[in-house]
Structure formats: structure tokens, C-alpha cells
């Protein structure tokens, strides 16, 4: 996610593998993200209509307006954790009375928002004109956005998306689509801007094309040794959240694929002496990317894939790319994709996608990161772990993490477990 973390990873690799440092795609990512946040502040200052969104909100519809921009508090929180300022921001929220048991993203965001963006790597986010949450990826986020709704008197629109114990049904898709139309109408009313549906077609095409490149990029994990690490995907996924629907996103991922392809052809691999091909289940531990990837590499381990990133561009329960059919209504596509992230999926769907990833990528073992800050992701992992271990007969381990609050993570405890886990793979 963060540039700083990315630098650390690549420098680490340079030291260990005597390879060039930050990749060109890494440099492009830094520029893209910096420009994205600068544009956000600049356009907001110029009077753009600012919407804060949950990460799975169909932001492509915002491209249908002349001057609507969006900010993603979850992404900003992840970046703050990567830049190691999250404890400071969490503490600010805790001093306001927010329990340390509350999601660290929420605490970071609240701490930043009510301190006018101080200590933020991006000077915070511009003040919103509208908040758009949904309750499928993270229902807690609805309560989190309610804080701003109440404190700042900013309208709050919630997308009510049914949880997927089974693949999404037509009736659910229709319900979601109606709400997307309602959201469009709400933005028209609040912003006074006209909606141009043809522009949304372009934005959806861009997202779909970007996902196609994203899947190709992740596909280099199938190479032996893997052409990528999941840490690369954690870092590189950032613009999917902040720039989805844009041409820049497609261009960036096209470049990323080309560069990764070249590196593989040249025999440049992140963990050349890869002994253990691992899969990660949960949100990235943003404050640990560098350390964790480095220590794992020393042990011959490479987390080559993650449910957190392979779900992007897929339907619930699936591993493959789900393309946009240009002959169909883009809002149907957006509604159909509303459950792509792992959190709104039941056990069977999570198992289906993960078992597919394990088989396709030649995974040796799975690390389940039990994440105190994400109950939606975590509170099904114990049974998922049990099922993966027994039905696929591969070693697994569960470690305790918090995606953005390093005060709740113990590196030595985690690596004691990971060490034993790698031994169990070795014995198989």
C-alpha cells in the first residue's frame, strides 16, 4: 500500500538478491498515488462535490458527473499504517472515547478526521459532501460513517447489500441496482450536477480492463519460483481503491504486467530460493509488510497469493476474472460485482475460491491471519482453516494480527508459529 513500505520491500530484495531496487511499476505507483491525493485536495478546494466511500461502493457511477470526486477512508487508513503513523491516530480516537477494541481503520480515520488531517501522510481527506457506505463488506463501516454524519451533518447514503451464503441471486442484483440508481439520483439532487450515463460505460470498461491486467499480474504467482509476492499485490492494489474507473488505472496495470513479465523472463524473482509457496488469508498487515516479507524470505517462504487481492475482479466464490459485457447495462455489472470482496461471502464460497487458488498456484500452506480489527473477515477463519487443512490436506497456521494497529501485533509470537508451520510443510 504505502510507498515507504514498497521501498523497504524492494530494498530488502536488492540486498538479498542483488537485484535492482524499486521497480518502475513501483515508482509509477508512487506517482499515481501522490497525484491521486493531490488531485483530490486540489479539486475539492476548487469546489468539486466530495464523496467518502467504503471500498466496494461502485465508484464508476461518479464518472457520470462533471465534478464529483471520491475519497476512500479505508485506503487512507491503510496508508497511514504503512507509514507507521497509525498508533498516533488511533490514540487520538481513543482519547475521544473510542474503544481500542474498535477496528483500527475506523480509529485511524476518526483520529485523523477530527484532528484536521494532522499527522496524516496525505494531510487527511477533503471534507465530504456525502458519505456512501455499504453493509456487505463491512457493516461496522456504516456506524463509522454515522459518526461524521452526526458530527458534521453530512448526508449518509447506505447501500444495503445482502450477504452471500450462496452466489448472488437475480432478486438481490435487482435490489442492489435499484439502490445504485437511487444513489445516482441522490447525487444529482445534492450536487446539482447532471448525470451522463454514457460516461459510466467508459468507466466500467476501464475498471473491467484494469481487473483483466490485475488478474494477469497475479497470474505470475503460478510461476516457479513465483514472479511476485502477495506483498507486491498488497502494495499495488491501492489504486484499485482510489482510482477505479480511470484510464490511468488501466495504463498502470498494463505497465505492471509488462514489467513483471519481463522480470520473469529475465529470471528476476522476489524470492529466488523459494521453498514454500504460501497463501495469506485476510487484510494485509500494513505495518509489517517489509519485516514480514523479509523474514519469510530468509526462511525460504514466499506468500505468493492472498484472498484479499485475488478476490478483486472476481465474483463471490470464484477465482477467475469476471469481465464486463459491453452489450449490457453497466449498472448490472456493478451490482453483480458487489460481493467480490471476501467479507460478504459465506464459508462455502470462501472455500471454493481458496481451494481454486491453492490448486492453480501450487500452494504449500495457508497462513490465516486472525485480524482483531476485522471481524467480518476473521470470524469464519477457524472453520475455513479446518476445512482447508482436512479436505485439501495441506498445512495451515493461524496467527494473530491487526491490519493497522501495530500495538496489537507481536512479531515474535507470529514468527514462532510461522516457523513451526514451515517445518510442518517441510515434513510433508
Amino acid at each position, binding site marked *: 500500500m504505502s510507498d515507504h513500505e514498497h521501498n523497504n520491500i524492494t530494498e530488502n530484495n536488492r540486498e538479498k538478491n542483488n537485484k535492482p531496487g524499486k521497480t518502475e511499476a513501483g515508482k509509477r505507483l508512487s506517482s499515481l498515488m501522490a497525484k491521486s491525493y493531490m488531485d483530490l485536495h486540489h479539486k475539492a478546494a476548487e469546489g468539486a462535490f466530495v464523496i467518502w466511500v467504503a471500498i466496494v461502493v461502485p465508484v464508476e457511477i461518479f464518472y457520470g458527473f462533471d465534478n464529483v470526486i471520491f475519497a476512500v477512508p479505508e485506503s487512507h487508513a491503510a496508508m497511514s499504517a504503512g507509514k507507521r503513523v497509525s498508533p498516533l491516530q488511533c490514540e487520538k480516537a481513543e482519547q*475521544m*472515547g*473510542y*474503544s481500542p*477494541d*474498535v*477496528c483500527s481503520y*475506523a480509529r485511524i480515520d476518526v483520529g485523523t478526521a477530527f484532528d484536521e488531517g494532522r499527522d496524516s501522510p496525505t494531510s487527511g481527506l477533503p471534507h465530504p459532501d456525502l458519505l456512501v457506505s455499504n*453493509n456487505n463488506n*463491512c*457493516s*461496522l463501516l*456504516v*456506524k*463509522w460513517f*454515522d*459518526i461524521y*454524519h*452526526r*458530527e458534521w451533518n453530512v448526508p449518509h447514503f*447506505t*447501500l*444495503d447489500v*445482502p*450477504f452471500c*451464503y450462496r452466489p448472488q441471486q437475480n*432478486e*438481490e442484483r*435487482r*435490489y442492489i441496482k*435499484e*439502490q445504485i*440508481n*437511487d444513489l445516482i*439520483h441522490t447525487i444529482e439532487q445534492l450536487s446539482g450536477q447532471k448525470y451522463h450515463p454514457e460516461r459510466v460505460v467508459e468507466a466500467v470498461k476501464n475498471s473491467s480492463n484494469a481487473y483483466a491486467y490485475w488478474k494477469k499480474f497475479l497470474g505470475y504467482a503460478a510461476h516457479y519460483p513465483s514472479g511476485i509476492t502477495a506483498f507486491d499485490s498488497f502494495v499495488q492494489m491501492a489504486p484499485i481503491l482510489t482510482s477505479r474507473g480511470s484510464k490511468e488505472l488501466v495504463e498502470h496495470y498494463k505497465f505492471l504486467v509488462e514489467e513483471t513479465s519481463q522480470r520473469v523472463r529475465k529470471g528476476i524473482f522476489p524470492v529466488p530460493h523459494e521453498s514454500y509457496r504460501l497463501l495469506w488469508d485476510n487484510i494485509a498487515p500494513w505495518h509489517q509488510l517489509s519485516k514480514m516479507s523479509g523474514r519469510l524470505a530468509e526462511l525460504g517462504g514466499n506468500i505468493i497469493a492472498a484472498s484479499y487481492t485475488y478476490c478483486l475482479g472476481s465474483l463471490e466464490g470464484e477465482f477467475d476474472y469476471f469481465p464486463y459485457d459491453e452489450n449490457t447495462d453497466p449498472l448490472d455489472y456493478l451490482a453483480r460485482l458487489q460481493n467480490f470482496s471476501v*467479507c460478504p461471502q*459465506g*464459508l*462455502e464460497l470462501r472455500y471454493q475460491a481458496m481451494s481454486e487458488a491453492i490448486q492453480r498456484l501450487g500452494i504449500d500452506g495457508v497462513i490465516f491471519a*486472525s485480524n*482483531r480489527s476485522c*471481524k*467480518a473477515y*476473521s*470470524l*469464519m*477463519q*477457524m*472453520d475455513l482453516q*479446518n*476445512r482447508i487443512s482436512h479436505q485439501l490436506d495441506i498445512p495451515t497456521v493461524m496467527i494473530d494480527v491487526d491490519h493497522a494497529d501495530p500495538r496489537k501485533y507481536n512479531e515474535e509470537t507470529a514468527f514462532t508459529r510461522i516457523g513451526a508451520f514451515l517445518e510442518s510443510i517441510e515434513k510433508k
Partner: protein
Amino acid sequence: MKDLNPNFLLNKLEEENVIGCFPLYPPLELFHAMGLTPVILWGLKDSVENFNISDRHLQVFSCSIARELLQFTLAHEPDFECLFFYNACDTLRNLPDILQAGMRERDMALPFIRMHLPMIPLERRGASAYLEKQITTLITELEEFTGKSFDPEKFAESVDLYAQIRELSDRLEKMVASGKLSYADFSACLQANYFRSPETQLAELKNLEDNGSFNQPANGKQVGVLISGIQPPPLPIIELIESAGLQIVGNDVATQRRSYGYQPPNTKDPVYYFKQFYSNHFPCPTLLHTADKRPPHLVRFLEETGAKGIIFSAEKFCEYEYLEYPYLEKLFKERGINTLTLELTASKTVEDTGGYKTRIEAFAELLKN
């Protein structure tokens, strides 16, 4: 004060045709009209001995409600006809699949019936029609499951029965407020009622109305407070509150006022009834669409009851409630209302009440001065 039997729930589940429901606000009237006895699986602390099975399926940073429900169902294998659930928080929506995995492991089999309750105002586009479809689908599923046809007359009778329960619960709360009944007895009765047939519930409430009493502490003046939480405090904590001279003049507890605080008009039409029921429900953080109503509602409630303070019975790891406290505290403080937050965990009993006692007494002193 009544003493809760630790095996209370187990005994009571000798009721027949039980449908276990979670979370808090299922369509009870519909289940009852279809010949089922709905039991809300909430607050099972007195029915679980430990968490040895739950801990194999659910991380310890889950709330006690989820852990108790899982432990109870898997350990005791209650004789339910089926389980019903609708969506609420991130923890509870994951629970059905976790429960199913645990049941499979133990060769248990129970039919599951699910419903998605729209968490947006029904005035919003699509929401009303979607809820209507959910209710009609639920009726069809229940007809298939029970082998009985839906009978509007029976539905109206069930609505009437639950209306009486809610009305009587409201009356009893007023008795507590006026010092004629202890909140501990009131709370114990309502908690126990979760595991009784509605007919028995009504009888128990009437019995409490006729025979309940409260011996107010002899010394010191009484000060009115509200209790708020997803669950009421455990009885030992309630005793501490009442013995400190704090009179509970109202509650904003999910299993209490939030459950009986609104009763739709009687009708034979379940779709109309449940649209009214969920739209106008007493605000609760688990019903996301009621968020806007909650702060003014609580302020008005405080004014009506004349409460000088509010005690939050805070369920550890309940993020829905936790995310509301700072704003509510600020809101109340601006109105000169003091708040006390008591964090309660999944531990079996409140062994050490010392810490709570000190804080409750200090809070009482603050309010009295």
C-alpha cells in the same frame, strides 16, 4: 429477587415446536401463527458452562452473545425444529455458517431459514418491495416446513398476543420507574421470558405485575437513571446499582424497551405489519436504518423520565454500540446528563464486583450532589 436457575433455558426448551431465532427482532408473530414457538437466542450466559466448543470455532474477540449462542447450540444440541436468522452485525451474519460447520462436525442437522432485513429506510427505492418479497418468501418456506397454510386469522391472534406482552412490559417498566418494582426482578423476568412460549410470557408478566415489589434502600435519596445496552447488566450489577440509590426510571436495552417499545396496529396482513414493525421500531444500533432516530429519541426519553444519568451496559467487542458511545456521551453531557460505562465481558459470572461497586457508588454520589 428471583434467582435464575442455571439450567433455566434447558428446562424451558421442553416447549414443543421451538424455532431458535437470532438476532433480536425476528418476526415472532409469524412464527407463532404458523404453530411454532419462537425462542430468541440472546443472553445465554446462564445456559453455558464454558466456551470449550465455541473457542474451536470463534475467536475470543467475539462478543459474548455470539460465543454463548455457539457454545449453547453445539454443546447442548437443543431440540429445535429449526433455526432462523436475519442479518445484523459483522459477527452475527457470519455465525450461521460457523454454526453449520460446528453442527456438521457433531453430526447435528437442523434446517436453517434465513431472511435479509433491509437496513435502509423503507422509503428508499427498492427497499419496501424487497422486504415484501422477503416476508412472502419466508411465509412460503414456513408453510413448506410446517406443512400448514398461513392463516390470517391466526396471525392476527398472534399479533394480539405479542401486543399484550409488549404493553404489559411497558407497564412494568413504569412500575420500576415509580419504585413499585425492582429493576432486577423486571430484568430477570424479561430475560427468562425469552425462552418461554408467549402465552407463558404473558402469564409471568401478569404475575410480576400482581406480586412484584421493591424494597428501596432505607437511607439516602433516590436518583433516576437510564440503563442502555445490547443486554441488561448482570443481576449482581443491577443489585449494586439499585442499592446505591439509583432508581432505574427507564431503559434503552435491546432485550427490553428496544424490543417492546413499539407495537404496530393489529392486522391480518403480515407484509403490512412487518413493514410497520421494522420501519418504526424503537431505535437500536443493530437496525442500521434507525440511526438517525436514535439520538433525538434518547434525549426525549431522558427528558420524559427525568433521568439524571445514563449507565451504558457495554458489551465488550460490540462495535456497533462502541461506535455510538462517544457521540451519545457528548450529546448527554451538553444537556447536563452524566454517563457511566460499565464494560461487561463473556466471563461466566461477575465474580469481582468490587471495581464495579466503587464506580457505581461514585457515579451515584456524582448524581446526588
